[in-house]
């Protein structure tokens, strides 16, 4: 146990995800040894991020204003919506530079054992967004795991009566791997989604 504020700092850092007591102690002593200007900048950023960052009113992505950068950009295609679980997935898709439409961040995935059902996600808001008929295609880009698949199948069922084109991101073999190490489910998906090779 350290005295006063040093122990407080270790305790606070230890509450962050993935930071154990030893890591918290190491980071605390790094902060103690760091330049005061650097520490002040870190503290200011931490306060600013809580005060300024909010969730976009339309898509629930992180934003610094009422609308996020993507929803307020008139050049983005408003007829296509890509549905993702978290804001970090928006960044992942944006890095591909393949998608020019807009997003909808669900805020997680359906996980009954974890106590997360459809009503705990921004699904109602998504259905409301689709109601005006301007959106023609929905891309379901939830994670390729059980929770993501369940969420995608639930959304597909809910949206089916609206007559939109609903697609799911392709899943299959990762580039740079050997076929023999692929698991049966992934390899099965790769076969389902195989495509014709043009000469």
């Amino acid at each position, binding site marked *: 146990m350290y005295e006063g504020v040093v122990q407080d700092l270790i305790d606070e850092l230890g509450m962050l995800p993935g930071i154990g007591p030893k890591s918290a102690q190491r980071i605390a002593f790094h902060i103690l040894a760091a330049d005061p200007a650097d520490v002040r900048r870190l503290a200011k950023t931490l306060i600013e991020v809580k005060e300024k960052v909010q969730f976009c009113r339309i898509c629930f992505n992180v934003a610094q204003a009422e609308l996020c950068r993507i929803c307020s950009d008139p050049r983005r295609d408003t007829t296509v919506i890509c549905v993702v679980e978290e804001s970090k997935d928006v960044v992942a898709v944006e890095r591909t530079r393949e998608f020019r439409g807009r997003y909808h961040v669900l805020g997680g995935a359906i996980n009954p054992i974890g106590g997360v059902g459809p009503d705990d996600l921004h699904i109602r808001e998504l259905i409301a967004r689709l109601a005006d008929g301007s959106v023609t295609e929905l891309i379901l880009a939830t994670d390729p795991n059980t929770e993501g698949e369940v969420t995608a*199948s639930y959304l597909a069922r809910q949206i089916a009566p609206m007559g939109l084109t609903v697609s799911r991101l392709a899943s299959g073999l990762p580039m740079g791997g050997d076929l023999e190490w692929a*698991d049966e489910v992934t390899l099965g998906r790769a076969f389902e989604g195989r495509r014709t090779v043009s000469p």
Partner: protein
Amino acid sequence: MPVYRDEGVVLRTMPLGEADRIVTLFTRRNGRVRAVAKGIRRTSSRFGARLEPAMYVDLQLHQGRSSLDTVTQAVLLAPYGAVLAGDYGRHTAAAVMLETSERLTSEEREPALRLFLLLVGGLRTLASGEHPSGLVLDAFLLRALAVSGYGMALDDCVHCGEPGPHPSVSVAAGGIVCPRCRPRGAASASLAAVGLLADLLHGDWAGAEATDARTRRESAGLVAAYLQWHLERGLRALPHLERA
């Protein structure tokens, strides 16, 4: 036993660090085991989809000094989780089965072979779609409670042994009660619902499937009340259950 092999069903997973997961497994010979699957969240992981919930896998595990083992190899025996993920209703039924199995195996590394076989059989039946998912779930729950020592008495009165069926169920007493023994708080039940519970417990699918939706709803309510009474804490998956 630094390295051992077993087969098991993945009950649940939770993220650990940057790319790992803690996987809770229900194994045939070692009961409930928690193990780390390193690097599983990377798209290039050799585990792929094998360690997702409700997957039935052949495993090699390493027992370290901590309470957590490490998964070193996994081979898929049956992809129940992948099949059920495509159907929301059946997935929620599977989630209740997995959570119940976890709660009924309160001690880690305590083998529970009958419950394990029941879970594998239940997932197989659910994935095959040969019976309605609600009936499969209720049959599993009644039998899982029975093999864990909480069997519901459905043939005779639990107090005096008067041969049934009787139109009252006392969750606290553990089954049907005759009109003379009926305690306060016992639920009234139709004879059809009591008959359905007995069919599900004894595996009479023809009799169970001949029932109407109202009887099934009534018996499902009794099963849920009985389950929650014995598990003491409510199941998190149960409010999300979607019955067809």
